[in-house]
């Protein structure tokens, strides 16, 4: 039986009257890549932000290595963050800092590492995601969307995280660049031996990077299984989603 790295048990979150997460139960095995799929507005991003502690939960619990991480002090949460890496949908690079400073940001300001050593690590990571060395001195605005995603990936893996989160990693990229990012995600996760939790709409990406897939609908996990079983899941929500049909149990109204 595989060891569970992250476990969500009955996680609930509402914004006013809008119940976004309605008792999410999910287990992410250590060293595996789990992808959560679901229509827009079903709570995928909120779920990741709850795990990261960026959004507080209303009920349930989130466990990392079997320990509750929801009721920690601010300082403990900051310490905990060193175990996490996150690739944001838009990259979220700091636009006033050069690329190497972005990649080294957590090392310098979060861990107090010497700037020279942090720069050296940043340059290694920039090379690891296939960017040229001269990119290190550019500002994010001087990079294309695909290059920004790569730089953001370099930043996410710079701190050698145990868990990496990917929020729509291929959104807005052309198919070739999307495949490059998928390959980088696979190699980065494999090289680090990390656990990966991704959310995406892109089925090509799902089939490429996932070991396991979970489907979220109405703030609940409605299916969870191996990526090999995705096409024969027998779940009407999964069937509709993976084939992109407008007819089915997922309606526009239900997507919020």
């Amino acid at each position, binding site marked *: 039986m595989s060891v569970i790295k992250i476990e969500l048990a009955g996680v609930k979150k509402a914004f006013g009257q809008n119940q976004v997460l309605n008792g999410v139960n999910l287990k992410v095995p250590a060293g595996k890549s789990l992808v959560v799929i679901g229509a827009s507005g079903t709570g995928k991003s909120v779920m990741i932000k709850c795990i990261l502690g960026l959004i507080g939960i209303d009920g349930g619990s989130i466990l990392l290595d079997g320990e509750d991480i929801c009721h920690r002090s601010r300082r403990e949460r*900051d310490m905990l963050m060193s175990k996490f890496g*996150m690739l944001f949908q*838009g990259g979220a690079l700091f636009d006033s800092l050069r690329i190497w400073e972005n990649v080294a*940001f957590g090392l310098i*300001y979060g861990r107090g590492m010497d700037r020279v050593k942090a720069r050296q690590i940043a340059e290694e990571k920039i090379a690891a995601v296939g960017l040229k060395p001269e990119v290190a001195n550019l500002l994010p605005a001087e990079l294309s969307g695909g290059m920004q995603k790569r730089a953001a990936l370099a930043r996410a893996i710079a*701190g050698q995280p145990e868990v990496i989160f990917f929020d729509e990693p291929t959104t807005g990229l052309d198919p070739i660049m999307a495949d490059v990012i998928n390959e980088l995600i696979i190699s980065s996760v494999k090289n680090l031996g990390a656990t990966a939790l991704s959310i995406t709409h892109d089925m090509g990406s799902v089939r490429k990077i996932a070991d396991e897939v979970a489907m979220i609908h109405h703030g609940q996990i409605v299916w969870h299984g191996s990526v090999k079983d995705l096409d024969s899941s027998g779940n009407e929500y999964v069937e509709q989603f993976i084939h992109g049909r407008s007819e089915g149990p997922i309606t526009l109204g239900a997507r919020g």
Partner: protein
Amino acid sequence: MHTPQTTPKPFSLMLDFLHNTGATTLDVFAKAGEITLFILRALWHCITPPFFLTQLRRQLIDIGYYSLPVVGLTTLFTGMVLALQSYTGFTRFNAESAIAGVVVLSVTRELAPVLAGLMVAGRVGAAIAAEIGTMRVTEQIDAMTTLSVNPFKYLIAPRVLAGTLMLPLLVLIGDIIGVFGGYLVGVYRLEFSPANYLTQTWDILESMDIISGLVKAAAFGFIVSIFGCYHGFNSPRGAQGVGAATTNAVVSASIMILIFNYILTQVFFS
């Protein structure tokens, strides 16, 4: 036949009025509490390590050095106008000799700190709110948190410290430039004797006049930076959200400056 019971119209209107008044009052208190907690949190991070000195130095330059032209021009022309206006009024009472005193007291006690505060609110408060608001909506603040860096330490504390430290310095320079503006008009336009003008200025000026202005400036610098940070940090999504945050930062800081100017004047001079 059964007729449905309805609430009489005047009673219903009164209920609506009470409901709206109650909801608004609760909103105001909730917002006041939220701002107070934000201020306390910001203050805590200003006085506890780690300190990001590179950020502080950058903000000292951004907020202080780059605001100097705006504050200098504002106080220069204010001093000049004050001398001119005082002259047209005081000649009616043969009290021209009081012009130098009026200029120096008005500039040091009131006009330099208040006008510098308002100008910096427009320049710096808006910039802080827009920058932090954009970082909020593009998830840069979330990214910072995931990199184990507290945004209050890296973004808020340096700006609040820089605002509080630099505005008194700007006002001190503004005091000198404002008095110099009055001197220029007094000597070259109204043909006062330079020596007399300076003597009258020096004789009437007391250390408390300058100190009170500098204390006000520190308070206004804190207000401008904290409101810029607060509105930026809590910016709603989208370009419209950042625009609204910027407007709210400038408007709320300007109003608070005027309110605190009265309170501090009362404390110092009543």
